[in-house]
């Protein structure tokens, strides 16, 4: 394979300061053509600001933004080949569904017959055929979302930012940029994810990379549930007080008198909490040396009663050391 795929978006040392507040702090990242890329992070982390910088609703304090190699910093949104689907869909209430979808075409002076044809195509694509004459007020929330999507997709510029199922993305073959705080959504749909925290990107990677090898405490915590072990307990287990993480599903709960298999990590504690979740159960175990670990086990054989009875019992936790992940230098 020679060379990486063409670059759809590049953030080049982009910062957005509001007085003292650094909403986006010296951020650089690349998004390749045709991939489904997600900005993931809690509210206030800067992901929405980055989206707005890309769309042109806001200007960076410093740095450049490139779309397909062209520097668009300073270009207003109506000159950028980027389309957004807004959180509240922002459909024009005084226009029909058809006029809404055709809006971008109308602006570009596409003639009427062509517009009508493409609107019909679009409505088919989002599975709402024949609804051109409806008004937004007559639509359900889900339908409005699809109209908003159709309105953006119809322009099929080289760049898209979307909020929708991966299926459509793969079918149409365009680049998607998705913004969310829901890590489960992100893990399900994305080719790659950028995890935002306080105006910076902590880590960029594919879902498995982020989950299996979190680079920092924040990523470990934010993407999935994780256990972070440090201090004397860490020393006992790994020989170093450095913090490391273990995913809850990698840990097994045994009786205290059971013997840990060779080479496995082992530690004792008391079950503090049992949360029965149908398919699996989440245990919070208070360790003998202090601190809690979360363990998740599938309810393969145990009944709910047996499971809940575990509360207060002394147990032994065992897991294979390959699941221990050192975090990056970031905390």
């Amino acid at each position: 394979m020679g060379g990486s795929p063409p670059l759809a978006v590049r953030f080049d040392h982009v910062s957005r300061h509001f007085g003292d507040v650094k909403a986006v702090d010296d951020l650089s990242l690349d998004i390749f053509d045709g991939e489904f890329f997600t900005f993931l992070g809690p509210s206030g982390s800067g992901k929405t600001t980055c989206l707005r910088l890309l769309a042109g609703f806001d200007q960076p304090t410093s740095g450049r933004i490139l779309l397909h190699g062209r520097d668009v910093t300073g270009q207003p949104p109506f000159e950028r080949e980027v389309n957004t689907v807004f959180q509240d869909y922002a459909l024009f209430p005084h226009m029909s569904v058809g006029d809404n979808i055709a809006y971008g075409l109308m602006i570009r002076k596409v003639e009427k017959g062509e517009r009508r044809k493409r609107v019909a195509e679009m409505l088919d694509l989002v599975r709402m055929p024949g609804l051109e004459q409806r008004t937004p007020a007559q639509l359900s929330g889900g339908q409005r979302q699809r109209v908003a999507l159709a309105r953006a997709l119809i322009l099929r510029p080289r760049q898209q930012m979307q909020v929708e199922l991966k299926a459509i993305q793969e079918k149409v073959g365009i680049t998607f940029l998705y913004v969310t705080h829901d890590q489960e959504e992100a893990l399900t749909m994305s080719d790659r994810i950028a995890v935002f925290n306080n105006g910076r990107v902590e880590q960029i990677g594919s879902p498995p990379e982020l989950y299996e090898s979190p680079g920092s405490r924040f990523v470990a915590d934010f993407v999935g549930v994780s256990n972070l072990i440090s201090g004397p307990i860490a020393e006992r287990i790994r020989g170093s007080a450095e913090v490391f993480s273990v995913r809850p599903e990698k840990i097994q709960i045994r009786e205290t008198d059971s013997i840990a298999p060779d080479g496995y990590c082992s530690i004792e504690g008391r079950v503090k909490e049992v949360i029965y979740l149908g398919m699996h159960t989440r245990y919070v175990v208070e360790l003998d040396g202090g601190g809690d670990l979360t363990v998740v086990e599938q309810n393969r054989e145990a009944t709910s009663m047996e499971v809940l009875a575990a509360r207060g019992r002394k147990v032994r936790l065992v897991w294979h050391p390959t699941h221990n992940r050192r975090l990056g230098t970031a905390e």
Partner: protein
Amino acid sequence: MSPTRPARDRDSQGPEERPVLLRIASFLYLRPSLVLALLLGPPLVWMIVVYLGSLVFLLIQSFFSLDPFTGQVIRVLTLATYKDLWTPANLDIFFRTATMAAVVTVTTAVLAFPLAYFMARYASTRLKTVLYLAVLLPLWSSYLVRVYAWRLILAKEGILNWFIQQLDLTRVLDLLLRAPVIGGPSLSVSFLGMFIVFVYVWLPYMILPVQAALERVPRSLLEASGDLGARPGQTLRHVTLPLAFPGVIAGSIFTFSLTLGDFVVPYSLGNSSFFIGQAVLSLTGTAFNIPLAAAFTVVPMGIMAFYLVGARTLGAFDAL
């Protein structure tokens, strides 16, 4: 499927080909402060130059004085005009006007409350719209016409007197008319008559803010009060009224201010004892003493300034 190229392909246009308007639009988009200046400029300049400028100029005028011999304004700062203002006759005028304004305000508040309460608490949506329009209509209807209507009604040969005669209450009316201060030769030339008309014309100005304030009282508060054992009257006194009070204050700003400055009602239904409005008007007529007229208006301005500050602290501006 490959997309057709959109008709206007911005990517391939060089900077020289872009239309002028678009370039201006792009230029302005990146300069929000400039856009703000362009938007805010005209109205701000108008208000400051035309209105604030006039007000300031008026204030300055009140510190000039009129030469009694030439009738010209002497543009020298002095307090002489204010001294001229401070005569028993003028103080009478201020007192008279302020008292009328206060009485009118209280009366409109009392009259407005039942209607406002009904609208906010009991009226269905349709009935509320009907009532709302019923209050708006006289509000926007010609003010002069409404004053004129009462001239008709209050005239000696008019409908009100006719009713009074029919109900054999003539003696009561005569008693009222002989009363000091509020009385007069007839209803249509008396403070009593003026009072009625003032209340009539300003009533909608009081109803609307009070109704708005009452609307904002959440039902859950009233229900909680009842749940805690309060009778309807107690809920009214301890919960509803205090919460509606800012609305009353807001309405009172209008009734007080409008009464303070009015000359139409006093002219139509009054006698030679002037109200502030009449005094100012007459001073710009044949007497033509602008500095004194300016000084006269400073008084209601000052009163309203205090009133507005007080109203602000009582929360009236949130109710507007």
